[in-house]
């Protein structure tokens, strides 16, 4: 039961091309696009056991497994997705994709715009959560999945799960909304804007068209990621891990790396700026800021969720201050008022927002119990 060591093994990414124009919330139209995705497990004959994993800000389609045995790291949710794991690939057919605007293979700002032969750059349209869900639904059509046994996501991914339940009620049996929020608070938008400003004001950004300049706004990306990381950890968690530990044992009275936390953040920032696209970062944070399914319904989340027919699992983590438990409880309250079935767990954790990617025991138990219920229901 508690075997968390098995893996889906060696996996391969796939791509799907779409040439039906996608009309976006911004009014822009994406004439054609490509989605990069991976699947694990087997779709059953009834096509009832499919699960969609929606990624968060810096995520992608590589959810589980490795491309080669020598890969240092497995997919970003390998600890939760695999044979015998809570999202059990022995029972479910699991789909992960890279969202539009991403930088891991799906059409995004760094892709070539066929109309110009140049990278989209600053001309790539801004994406919203509903736009992504529409694109994901087309991928589902392509894969022959009429109805997801579950749509699952943490953070920005949880917003997509929530949006799915509203936009395609008949196509979602269960929505698992983890460490998420019904909309961002002013403070949350503020953090995003500081990150964006760091990127936009980097001289190497060139208004978003840095590809042609052979430049990368590394400094901006690095700062954005460092800031993000601070908000994904809790004060306690950070204190526990780093405290005031010094790299060299004593003060150096200078501005080089001294404290371990500085070293950690700079390392994370550097690593991130090596592979992540600056325009994608901007776009993802905007999608977060714009998310507000209640907006069209007179700011009444209950009214928006009344359309849903899915059953819900909502989970939050006690030390998560970026997407605090209070925000998850807003979702729960609206679901109860809308007369929906909902399970809510508020998990004790020191891991802050990052906890949704960790394995705190009650979290694993809750996921496992809930997904067992889903599996029994869809006869997976």
């Amino acid at each position: 039961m508690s075997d968390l060591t098995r893996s889906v093994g060696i996996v391969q990414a796939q791509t799907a091309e779409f040439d039906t124009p996608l009309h976006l919330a911004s009014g822009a139209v994406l004439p054609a696009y490509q989605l990069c995705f991976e699947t694990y497990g087997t779709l059953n004959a009834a096509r009832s056991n499919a699960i969609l994993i929606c990624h968060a800000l810096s995520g992608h389609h590589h959810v589980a497994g490795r491309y080669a045995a020598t890969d240092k790291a497995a997919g970003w949710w390998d600890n939760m997705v695999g044979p015998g794991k809570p999202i059990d690939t022995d029972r479910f057919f699991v789909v992960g994709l890279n969202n539009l605007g991403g930088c891991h293979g799906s059409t995004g700002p760094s892709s070539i715009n066929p109309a110009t032969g140049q990278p989209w750059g600053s001309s790539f349209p801004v994406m919203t959560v509903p736009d992504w869900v529409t694109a994901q639904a087309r991928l589902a059509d392509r894969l022959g999945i009429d109805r997801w046994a579950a749509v699952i996501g943490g953070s920005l991914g949880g917003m997509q799960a929530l949006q799915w339940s509203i936009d395609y009620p008949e196509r979602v049996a269960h929505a698992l909304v983890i460490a998420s929020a019904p909309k961002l608070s002013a403070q949350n938008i503020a953090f995003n804007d500081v990150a964006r400003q760091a990127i936009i004001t980097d001289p190497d950004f060139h208004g978003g068209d840095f590809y042609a300049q052979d430049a990368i706004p590394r400094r901006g990306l690095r700062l954005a990621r460092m800031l993000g990381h601070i908000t994904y950890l809790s004060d306690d968690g950070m204190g526990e891990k780093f405290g005031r530990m010094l790299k060299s044992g004593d003060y150096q009275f200078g501005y080089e790396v001294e404290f371990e936390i500085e070293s950690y953040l700079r390392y994370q920032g550097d690593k991130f700026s090596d592979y992540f696209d600056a325009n994608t970062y901007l776009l993802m944070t905007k999608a977060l800021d714009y998310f507000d399914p209640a907006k069209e319904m007179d700011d009444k989340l209950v009214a928006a969720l009344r359309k849903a027919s899915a059953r819900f699992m909502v989970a939050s983590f006690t030390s998560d201050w970026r997407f605090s438990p209070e925000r998850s409880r807003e979702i729960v309250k609206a679901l109860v008022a809308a007369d929906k079935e909902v399970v809510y767990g508020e998990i004790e954790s020191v891991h802050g927002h990052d906890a949704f990617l960790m394995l705190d025991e009650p979290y694993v138990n809750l996921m496992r119990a809930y997904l067992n219920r889903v599996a029994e229901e869809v006869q997976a």
Partner: protein
Amino acid sequence: MKATQTLRADLQLIADWVAPSSRVLDLGCGDGALLSWLNRHKATRGYGVDFDVNNVVRCVEAGVNAIQGNLETGLAEFENQRFDHVVLSQTIQAMHNTEQILVEMLRVGREAIVTFPNFGYWENRWQILQGHMPVSETIPYQWYNTPNIHWCMLGDFEALCVKNGIRVLERVVMNEEKRIHFLPNLRGSLAFYRVARQG
């Protein structure tokens, strides 16, 4: 899913008070035994609330929708009059905000079912006469480690109801699965109340 065939006697008494197809909120729902039984046998709908995440997990295993929450802070997740029955089983004596939860129960629900160990039970009185705080099957704690901080007898609970404009619709007093009609406050160890707003 674990099938719940037979209910504990005290939970069965509560279940008998719940109307078929009604909406039920079970506060301090534990492993979800009551709601699981009600969902199966009376086609009820609703939620359990529990403070302990492990109980939320047990509820999910029993097919019950549970919401993790702290009853002491009220029932803010629930709108007025969402439920037909709101159940608080053997928990009120362990709460700090006793009066508040009683009022909240009848804000979110039409009827409340409250059960508690009767402090007036003769064996408790006897132990006090012997110079000790009572310890029994329904009160299995020592004075220094008990979670039970608000003891009451039948008359005390009824007085609290009157104070808050709450009407007692039905009262049952039990002692080891037997209903006690004669001298209930002396002979009964467990009290069951079905209450509603006056008027």
